[in-house]
């Protein structure tokens, strides 16, 4: 199926990153259309956790999100890791899978984190080659995420937006746009986030990540452990004006807040793109007032 057709029929709604710590909260929030699971935390050797199976049984779509393919490495992606991600897609009957425009290892060393690649024309070609290999191995479409980085490689030949756009356009992959990563990089590296959005092939947009962070040591840190800044929500609203958003989700990895706070953050995300909010804790706005 061509990626463009895939996004036209893709309708995910509001979602959240599934974590064991908030399993009960996710189960209780009945208006979620999808959850994203970290692919490497669900090996095929272990059964699917009951809370995730329950979500799938009630029709919530499950999207495996990989962290370790290292598509930005000079070597092709590891066949074993690709097979594992493909198996995840089948296990969860996923509409798509996602990974990152990044590398995570070099030689024998694992970084433990997504690292930026040098934004050169050669690296565009490396990534296109690796992503095409991955796409051929996967039974569902692949969406690629832009990462946040505090440090950039010297000698960049391309702006980040152009780099990401060329990779998406050169492979036919879908786009997983992380607006908080975009916000972070625009803040830390001094570029216009709206101009970035204007360059992206938003017709390839599969879904959107939204998360929080903090200012520390003179930089904005994408922590996934703090409140969503208003600037990130504003960027999400700007995106909603420019493109159809098949799915949007909250990412929270640590310092999990009380359920009311998670509700509030999901409501803010849904409101930003005009999604109807239908969960038990939501109070609809009074007639005549906007949400």
């Amino acid at each position, binding site marked *: 199926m061509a990626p463009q057709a895939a996004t036209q029929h893709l309708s995910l709604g509001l979602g959240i990153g599934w974590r064991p710590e908030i399993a009960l909260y996710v189960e209780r929030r009945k208006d979620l259309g999808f959850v994203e699971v970290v692919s490497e935390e669900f090996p095929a050797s272990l059964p699917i956790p009951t809370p995730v199976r329950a979500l799938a049984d009630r029709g919530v779509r499950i999207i495996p999100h990989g962290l370790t393919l290292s598509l930005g490495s000079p*070597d092709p992606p590891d066949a074993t890791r690709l097979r594992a991600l493909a198996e995840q897609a089948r296990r969860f009957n996923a509409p798509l899978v996602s990974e990152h425009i990044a590398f995570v*290892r070099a030689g024998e*060393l694992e970084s*433990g984190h997504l690292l930026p690649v040098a934004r050169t024309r050669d690296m565009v070609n490396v990534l296109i080659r690796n992503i095409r290999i991955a796409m051929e191995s996967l039974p569902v479409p692949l969406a690629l995420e832009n990462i946040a980085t505090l440090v*950039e490689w010297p000698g960049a030949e391309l702006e980040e937006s152009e780099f990401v756009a060329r990779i998406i356009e050169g492979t036919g992959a879908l786009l997983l746009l992380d607006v908080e990563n975009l916000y972070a990089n625009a803040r830390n590296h001094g570029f216009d986030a709206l101009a970035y959005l204007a360059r992206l092939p938003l017709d390839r947009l599969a879904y959107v990540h939204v998360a929080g962070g903090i200012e520390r040591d003179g*930089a904005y840190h994408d922590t996934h452990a703090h409140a969503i800044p208003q600037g990130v929500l504003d960027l999400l609203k700007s995106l909603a004006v420019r493109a159809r958003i098949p799915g949007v989700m909250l990412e929270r990895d640590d310092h999990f807040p009380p359920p009311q706070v998670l509700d509030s953050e999901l409501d803010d995300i849904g409101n930003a793109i005009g999604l109807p909010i239908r969960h038990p804790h939501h109070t609809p706005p009074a007639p005549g007032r906007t949400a």
Partner: protein
Amino acid sequence: MIDPGTLGQVRAAQARFVAAMVGATPPPEGVNAPDFERARAALQRKRARALARAWPGLSQALGGDLPAQFDRFARDTPLPARGGALADGRAFLAWLKKAGCFPTRMSFDVMLVDLRFRQSSRGLDARTGPSLRCTLHDPRWRVCFGIRAAFAGRVLERIWRLGQRT
């Protein structure tokens, strides 16, 4: 077709980048040094948080010593290739034992992990055969032992803790 020479240059450059990011080597030439140090520190914090989640007893066992000890360990020891934070913590505890400052209240937690995994140079590998592990050093119990075996697609695991210490 990508020029092999170009791939070789990328390989070398990324190796220098990762080595500096996870260890104590200087950042690659041309990289903004303050930005790189900020990123390296953020990565260390992430690694420490992942460790705390995988080994929740460590904070209590080491108390205020944990950040400094882990920082010293992490500077010289890259993240294991296999096993993530669980393997990282197991390697950290082995490092503490070698340094003569293993926290005995982690003995039982280590026994549970060793019952299921084998430590290797690349991290932790899941055991496929039967295993028997024992510790006499837990401060709460005189003897802790466990057995684990796989049979007909099912796993049997039993843990015993005997002789509660007063």
